[in-house]
């Protein structure tokens, strides 16, 4: 009886639930919570994990906002790509001293004050625009993947963008930009060798000559490395004779 009554009382309440709002609250709290967790966690590995979760929850928010393509991209690129990259970085540098670096209390307080001030300004600004607080009047079901894809190729098919040109030029620019970034990142992150051996090194490593580095770079680098080692070797031979 009591269970029935309870259930009876609960059912209309459940029916009254706005599921859109419910899931929004769910994803919003997840996103915000894990974002704050990123801030407050000191272990860099956990920070990465929390960031993944926060970004994934944000993707959910995107789905709720009728931006299924963006949400998908968020999951694929951000969560699947960028953050994997980030985790690689964490793992490459995650030596014990660097896993968690303490920050001074003064800096934390200062950052907190700055963050709070910024948040206050932002919230005031957000809530001061009355139009943004009004809900939509009716249901609209308009898939956006197709119009977005067409727009990226220069054709606008959505009503709002009628008459405007598409995003073909930014699209191409971004594609070239990504290529440049990849090349640049590969160049920056490659294993470098020093141009000339420092005198200290040569003296210090007089007996066992510097081993030639593996020839992974351009052929010119290989020949340079080989000739350098040959020079060092001849110098060592003289030194060894003495």
């Amino acid at each position, binding site marked *: 009886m009591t269970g029935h009554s309870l259930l009876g009382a609960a059912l209309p309440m459940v029916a009254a639930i706005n599921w859109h709002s419910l899931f929004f609250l769910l994803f919003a709290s997840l996103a915000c919570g894990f974002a704050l967790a990123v801030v407050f966690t000191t272990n860099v590995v956990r920070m990465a994990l929390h960031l993944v979760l926060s970004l994934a929850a944000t993707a959910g928010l995107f789905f709720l906002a009728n931006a299924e393509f963006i949400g998908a991209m968020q999951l694929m690129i951000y969560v699947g790509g960028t953050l994997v990259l980030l985790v690689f970085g964490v793992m490459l540098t995650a030596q014990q001293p660097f896993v968690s670096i303490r920050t001074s209390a003064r*800096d934390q307080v*200062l*950052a907190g004050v700055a963050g709070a*001030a*910024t948040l206050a*300004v932002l919230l005031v600004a957000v809530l001061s625009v009355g139009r943004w607080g009004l809900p939509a009047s009716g249901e609209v079901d308009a898939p956006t993947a197709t119009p977005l894809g067409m727009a990226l190729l220069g054709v606008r098919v959505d009503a709002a963008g009628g008459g405007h040109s598409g995003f073909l030029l930014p699209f191409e620019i971004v594609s070239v930009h990504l290529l440049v970034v990849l090349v640049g990142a590969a160049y920056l992150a490659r294993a470098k060798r020093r141009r000339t051996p420092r005198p200290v090194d040569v003296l210090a490593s007089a007996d066992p000559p510097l081993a030639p580095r593996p020839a992974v770079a351009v052929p010119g680098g290989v020949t340079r490395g080989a000739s350098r080692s040959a020079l060092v070797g001849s110098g060592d031979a003289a030194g060894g004779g003495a």
Partner: protein
Amino acid sequence: MDAAATLPLLLGLAWLAPLVSFVAILFYGPRMGPHGRNAATVATAAIVTSLVLSLLAAGVWLGNHPVTAAVAHGGGDHGATGIPGADSPGGQGPGHGGEGHAVGEHASGGHGAPVPPSYSGDWYTLYEAGGLTLSIGWWIDALTVMMFVVVTLIATCIHVYASGYMHDELHDVTDHEVHLADGSHLHRPGRFPRFFQALSLFCFSMLGIVIAGNLAMVFIFWELVGICSWFLIGFYYERQSASNAANKAFIVNRVGDFGMLIGLMALWGALGTLHFGDRTVVDASGAPVARPGLFSLVRPASTGHALEVPAGMVEFAAADEVAAVVRTTAAQGGGADPGAVAATVASRVDDWRARGLGRWLLFIAGVGIFCGCVGKSAQFPLFVWLPDAMEGPTPVSALVHSATMVAAGVYLVGRFYPVLTPDVLYVIAWIGAITLFIAATIALVANDIKRVLAYSTVSQLGYMMLALGVGGWAAGLFHLVTHAFFKSLLFLCSGSVIHACHTNDMRKMGGLAKVMPWTAGTMLVGCLAIIGAGIPFVIGTSGYYSKDAILAQALAFANANPGRGWLFGAVAGGAFLTAFYMFRLWFMTFAGEPRDHHIAEHAHESPPVMVRPLVVLAVLAVVAGWTLPGGFGLANLIEQARPAGTGGMEQGGFLFSGLVVPPEHESHEGAVHVTATLTAFATAAAGVLLAAVMYLWGWVSPHVVAGALRPAYEFLAHRWYFDELYHAIFVAPVLAVSALVSGADRGIIDRIIDGLAWSARCLAGFDAWIDKWVVDGLVNATADVTWNAGLELKKFQTGRLRQYVTFIALGTVALFVLLSFLYRSTFAG
């Protein structure tokens, strides 16, 4: 041989040879052998070349114009016996492009004055404007040729002598007469090449005067001779006395040259030419135009070469009358026709000349030129430089200050003789007489051997001037030549003595004849020559002939001008004094016992290179005056060059009334000649005798005489107080005025300048203060502000990433807050 073409070539080359030597030594002297030893060879070779060329020229001359006895007594009575055809009017010069002009002696036939043979022309024209021409040219007659031979001959002897005398200069020299501040003596490198360099330049300049064809050229080389003299007197320029003497000679000569410039201006302005000889020039239309020279203008052929005031000077002096003519012609309507004016003026020149117009101009021209000669030939009152000039080396004294340079003045008077009026001649005679007397008296008491000779030179130059002044043209120039020989001989002998004794003071000499026989002998010959010793009417030294001629002419003048006979007295008295002081010199130097044994023991005969020129000159001093059978001799050679119209009697002077200049040939006539010769012999003998009494035999002590005549002795010993007088009336006032001006400069002008400078400095200080504290302050303040701001801002660039992020956040917030306050109305409204 064509004399008109050959003579300028030979003499021109003889003239230029020393210039080549000068240039060569100037540039390469120090490199000519060790210490420039070969400079002497170069200079001597050059002057020997000149001598040879001069002798060749003399040969050419004598070949064309033989000297005969007939010429000697030429004058108006005998006519001329010249050689027709010797002249080639307008003939081309010897390859130098100038036109030559020759004048024969046949021009005026058997009566009137003969025209001496002469050649003139221009090598090079420096400047030509209208009728005025400045050029380098020649005037060659017998006098020129003779002077060339004499100058180059003496110069050759002296070059040879000097190459021995100056050997000290081949090494470093310690000059014992220069005391440095630290008490030591000056030690300097030798200047052997420099000496011969100056000597060569001097020879070039002297020959330039002799050959000059116009007065402008004479003036140029006149000044060159002056500067050479300055170089040579000041050869030991470290000695204060030598430096002073050089400056004194130069400045005193400038005084005379100032007068000469006035004379030149008078001639140039009034006559428009300075050429001696006639020229033929080509005018604008191509037609040849005859331009008479100075001689033809003053003594035109139209008057039988009698002196007349040239038309140019008459017109110049008659400027008012000419202006009246111009006005009259203009009033008659002919003002536009210069020809008419010229014709009228020309027609009236004779009237104006008769009124005496222009004669003052001619007088000034003559006296002006003579002023230059007074300076150069050391005549009263400008003779003071010559004794001081003995500071130079002795060969210089011999060449420059006895034989040649001082002769230049006499030579110029002789050359210019046709232009000189009787009045000018009388002035010259006066000056000559005064000079000869003053100089002779000073020489009586001088103790420096070279100074005695220097005053003797002045005195003999006075003789020459007096001879020229009383109409003895040939006598004066004859004495010039003979004096050149025996005076250079005497100087070289004195140089030899000084070389041996290392002192100039005769009081320390004596008895040197034993150790220096050659020097003593040649000097005795020189002394005999200068006093005119000889056997009367038979034979004698060169001075015998020339001095007799002067005495005879003076006596003739005295006869012709009864009121002016004292000139003869001066000449005769001068002869006596000359004999006395010359033998005083010889006796004190060579005779008796040595006064200073130290000097006598160290004395020695000079080396052959010095003795040989002495012998040559001694021979010349004896024979130069001889006339060979047939009439060949110096006297006749000079007579051959006698300017046209000067052989006759000149009468009248507008300043000195009743003045008569007797013709020179009258003095050769029996009564006058015998009287003169006997007078000369008697005075000379008396002088020698008195000298022997006082200085050889010692019968009368010179000291006693000097004590008895103390005031006169002092007067003479102080050289008539001329130096003191000039110092008082010229030097002292100049110094006083200089001091005054200098004081004014220092006290007033410098004060004003200093005041200006001080005020400028104050202003500048104020400016500097403003610059430092205001301008710089502003700039520095800006810089400081920027610097400090940078320093402050630097603190914000911490390089800390997290801090930047915080700043960005806070900055954004602050910006928003600010904007919301500022633009509340805009946004919210």
